[in-house]
């Protein structure tokens, strides 16, 4: 490796250049130090809380199951002669949230999958003032039923920064608040 210092001896740096280097290194450090921690960021206001509405639920089939007639069964291969057929497609899940008597959220979650036979999923955020709220949640997972299948109403007291999760758990009776 050739000694490049012999080819072009480095111009000796004056005191000003050294001070400049120190200043530039210092500015660089300051910029990184400052912007890696400052300005502070607040995701919610100091008097706000967050409601997360989230569930993943497979809706009811869009139609009734039908019993096949003997003639229809006879047309099928012997190994496929199931007595009833049900539609694969699932109902979209509709959910509404009222806060203190006012509807603040309404979502219709379509079933996933190419055959629309998957779960319907919702994830929504509601930033609300901290304090006491009357929350009403209505959920319907069957297009054939006129009324909402599930309903939950309760009064909650939210402290600033609290996250209230509205979920659906059939094992716990439906709509849950936690």
């Amino acid at each position, binding site marked *: 490796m050739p000694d490049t210092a012999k080819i072009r001896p*480095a111009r000796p*740096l004056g005191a000003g250049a050294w001070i400049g280097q120190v200043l530039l*290194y210092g500015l660089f*450090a300051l910029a*990184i130090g400052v912007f*890696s*921690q400052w300005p502070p960021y607040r995701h919610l206001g100091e008097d706000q809380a967050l409601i997360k509405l989230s569930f993943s639920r497979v809706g009811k089939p869009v139609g009734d199951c039908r019993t096949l007639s003997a003639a229809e069964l006879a047309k099928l291969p012997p190994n496929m002669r199931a007595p009833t057929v049900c539609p694969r497609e699932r109902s979209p899940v509709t959910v509404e949230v009222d806060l203190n008597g006012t509807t603040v959220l309404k979502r219709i979650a379509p079933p996933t999958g190419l055959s629309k036979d998957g779960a319907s999923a919702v*994830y929504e955020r509601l930033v609300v003032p901290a304090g006491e709220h009357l929350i009403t949640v209505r959920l319907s997972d069957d297009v054939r039923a006129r009324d909402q299948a599930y309903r939950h109403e309760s009064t909650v007291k939210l402290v600033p920064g609290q996250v209230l999760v509205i979920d659906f758990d059939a094992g716990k009776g439906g709509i849950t608040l936690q």
Partner: protein
Amino acid sequence: MQRPTASFRQHGLKVWRTIEGGFDTAFGSALNPLRHLGAIGFLAFWLLAASGVVLFIFFDTSVAGAWRSIEELSRLPLGLGRLLRGLHRYAADVLVLAMGLHLLREWLHGHERGFRRFHWLTGVPLIGFVFVGAIGGFWINWDELGQFSAIASLEWFDALPMMAAPLARNFLAVEAVSDRLFSLFVFVHIGVPLLLLFGLWFHIQRVTRAAVMPPRALALGLLATLAVLALAWPVTSHAPAALARVPGELRLDWILLFLHPLTYATSPAFVWVLVGGGTLLLFALPFLPQPARAAVAVVDAANCNGCRRCFADCPYAAITMVPHPNQRIGRTLAQVDPDLCAGCGICAGACPSSTPFRSAAQLVTGIDMPQLTVSALRRQLQQALAASPSARPLVVFGCDHGARCSNLGGADVSPFSLLCTGQLPPSFVEYALRDGAAGVLVAACSEGGCEFRLGERWTAERLAGQREPHLRASVARERLELVFAGPGDEAQLLAGLERLRRRVIPLEPDADLPARLHHA
């Protein structure tokens, strides 16, 4: 009429060069950090890898243990933990800054097009790898900042229509977060940087002598700066993650995490359009209308002896050696890949058959540039010296991309602007002196500022006799002035010319040299 983008780029380049000039004053051109941005990015990556390996030894990859293990690390004696942690975080910030400035500098110089298209296109995906790897680093600490970043990232991803179930549901409740999730975190924070390393290899594989480390003095300066910063301004954790609460005030790293606040201030869709659109634009830039490419080097098999000097000196690995068509055993021939050739002419300057002392009327060299052949350069030099009104003319060999030499003052000056100073075979200096020149000035770009990366370095080494082909030792060095002057450094060029003029005026014509070769 000039396109607005071209004008914008030119103005930007002017500003950039002004700033670069300021840094030259403080650091000198060889150590100017703005000329080593890619290498600084590499340094930051090595630092991240080294500190990350040590951090990982202490790290407990579990929900309950992650935060605690990093807190314990911070309490290592002698500030070692603080140093490690600070270096790791601040190196990530440096990597992002160096990458952004590197991208800007290359674009301002028009380096997204032509033979550099490959480097540009392989560089764009690295931006994504860097950010994904860096953001994942906040998650594994699993403090309030990590919680916020993880949820914000997944809520952003959930905006994509392809998601069947919201990913952010994984962070709804404490029970949902398990130790297995840390396998994903570790993949994001270690696996993606490994992909980044692989991508970096692609990015530089068509570059000869790629700089993967800045000059030692600069590297030490940066390391010392980061170490002082890490100790003086330590990186600390927030409170442990608590999914039942939204973190209050966060000390956000705006360099690495700016996308999160931007997403909440606008919308996930807006940020997707911004990121996707920006990425598409970067990918599209090399394909926009651009100036015609420079002619590439041409090999003449009859004059190529397979010495490999062009192969060794090409900055872009555009030359390979193949069996010579004359079928003599062991004889090779240079072959130019037109897609990789920059058209800089450094290969012509490296070719031993490029010497102007050859007696052939039509000088054909082993490898040459069609737009300015060695033969044409010799002819122009002869004509200029013959036509010079001065009895003791000065010859200047400059560079199209460096300080402008074409309008240098003085009737005694014969300037020649080359494709790159590296195109100059050193024997031309001796030839010019033998042909009547009183002195020769060679103007290369400032160190590290060569448009073709290595031209100024090879020129300096060849003239110093440290690289082949070298300038013969018998050539009087007082008749040669080597100046490093980049674009805009015309004053430096003039000063160098004046130094040469003052030096050669008192000198008698060299008695050892024969009379003018062609027009005595």
